[in-house]
């Protein structure tokens, strides 16, 4: 499914006519956070649906380029998630993730993207409730910030001006 198709589908959700729904990218590790999302699903917890989840084997794989690329392509928010410290399947992957998150955040701020659009959360496989809470909270937070200035919807116009359209 193309991005545009996904978008029109998301925006057509009956979430109240006036309410704008953000487009959030969630990076989740295979062992904890992704399983946490599963737990939320199995438990039939209701939460905001306006995110796309990308599974990686370990949060230590979530390098700055993942996040920056998501913003470049117009994501309204990016959530980075992994196992709690001490729980990492690869022992120290999440410590690496925290280090990388720090420099990603610095770069994002330098670029003038609001701090609130990027978040790091540790969610274990058992914490389905927490996953739902984090998603709800973050969705509200990003919704309050409004569409990303680098928004997808505006990209074609920018391309016409000669800006990046890659």
């Amino acid at each position, binding site marked *: 499914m193309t991005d545009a198709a996904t978008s029109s589908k998301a925006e057509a959700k009956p979430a109240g006519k006036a309410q704008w729904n953000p487009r959030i990218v969630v990076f989740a590790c295979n062992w904890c956070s992704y399983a946490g999302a599963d737990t939320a699903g199995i438990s039939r917890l209701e939460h905001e649906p306006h995110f796309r989840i990308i599974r990686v084997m370990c949060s230590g794989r979530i*390098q*700055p*380029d*993942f996040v*920056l*690329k998501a*913003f*470049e392509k117009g994501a309204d928010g990016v959530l980075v998630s992994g196992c709690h410290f001490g729980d990492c399947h690869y022992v120290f992957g999440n410590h690496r993730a925290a*280090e990388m998150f*720090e*420099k990603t955040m*610095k*770069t994002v*701020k*330098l*670029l*003038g*993207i609001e701090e609130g659009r990027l978040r790091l959360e540790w969610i274990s496989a058992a914490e389905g409730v927490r996953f739902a809470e984090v998603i709800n909270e973050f969705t509200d937070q990003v919704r309050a910030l409004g569409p990303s*200035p*680098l928004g997808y919807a*505006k990209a074609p116009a*920018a391309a016409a*001006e*000669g*800006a*990046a*359209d*890659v």
Partner: protein
Amino acid sequence: MSDMLTIARDTKAWACYDCGKCTANCPLTRAGAAYSPRKHVLATNLGHQEMVAGQGTLFDCLTCKLCDARCPVGVEYTQLVLKLRELSFREGTEVECPHGGALQSAMRIMAQGKTQQDRLAWLDDDLQTVPDKGEVFFWTGCTMFYDAFFPEFEMATLEGTKAAVKLLNHLGITPVVSPDERCCGHDLLWNGDVKSFQALARHNVKLVADSGAELLVVSCAECLRTWKVDYAEFFEGAMPRIVHLSELLAERLDELHFAGEGETRKVTYQDPCRLGRHLGIYDEPRAVLEAVPGAEFTEMRRSGSGALCCAGGTWSNCDRYAKKLQVERLREARATGAELLVTACPKCQVHFRCAMNDPNLKDDIQIEMRDLAELALEGLA
């Protein structure tokens, strides 16, 4: 095919008589990479794009211009690489950045220009600058990004930028330092992304033109090359005079009033490829270095137009050969007996500091690195 032939004509590739000097001199080839500029020139002349395009060949070039400097008939191989990269980018080959493309993303976000960057947090009360209009524009470059992005190398390139502003203040100049400055687009251009480069070029040229500046001082070698060479076509009307900080300092050495008898220590200088072979600025940085009290300047074995580059020019070519070259260069710097390696480009610092992180070689190749501006500023105290 016709594209290739245009490139061959514009870069004088047709003059090539196959002597192979370029390949014999290429730092990559000498480090053992299966890389041959001569072959690329030949392929271009024959119009065989498949021989040069794509990963593993074209994007490996360090663009250090050493082959150009040695070519007996003046083939502009570096320009040829630039044009071929543009061609392959248009056809969908993207460079494989060793940082996963994070820096390219950051640059493209700047090219989109829809956010207000927060790039001047480092400006403190000691530094006198104006944000919009003035006679002298100081181009900071992206040192704040390097410092934020490479904490593992203990980067402090912003110190060089601050020192540059202090030096300008010392010369009685209150420069324009604009919060709206964007990446100069150097790396995107050299990655072949002309569209994003053009967006950045138009923005930056307008920014400087609107400031009314007559003099543009640049402290980054790559930004300088971009401003002097690649931005030329974007200027409507008069271009301001564009100088590297070292040129300005060398010109006004007397006004700097270097004082004090700083501790005597040996320093050596890394010629950034953009400043040296690309723009021919060799003497000015050396004049400044020699004037700084306490700094005893020694040349490395290969210097000036024969200097080895930092092997990481355009965020496109970091591999084991590049690392080998960096280690080789650091050993050369150490062999001079110098305690301090001075450079005039923040990228040189990024790449050498990265190489110094090698845990197996750490003590062998460790050397303090500073920007020229920092050393000059020390000389004032």
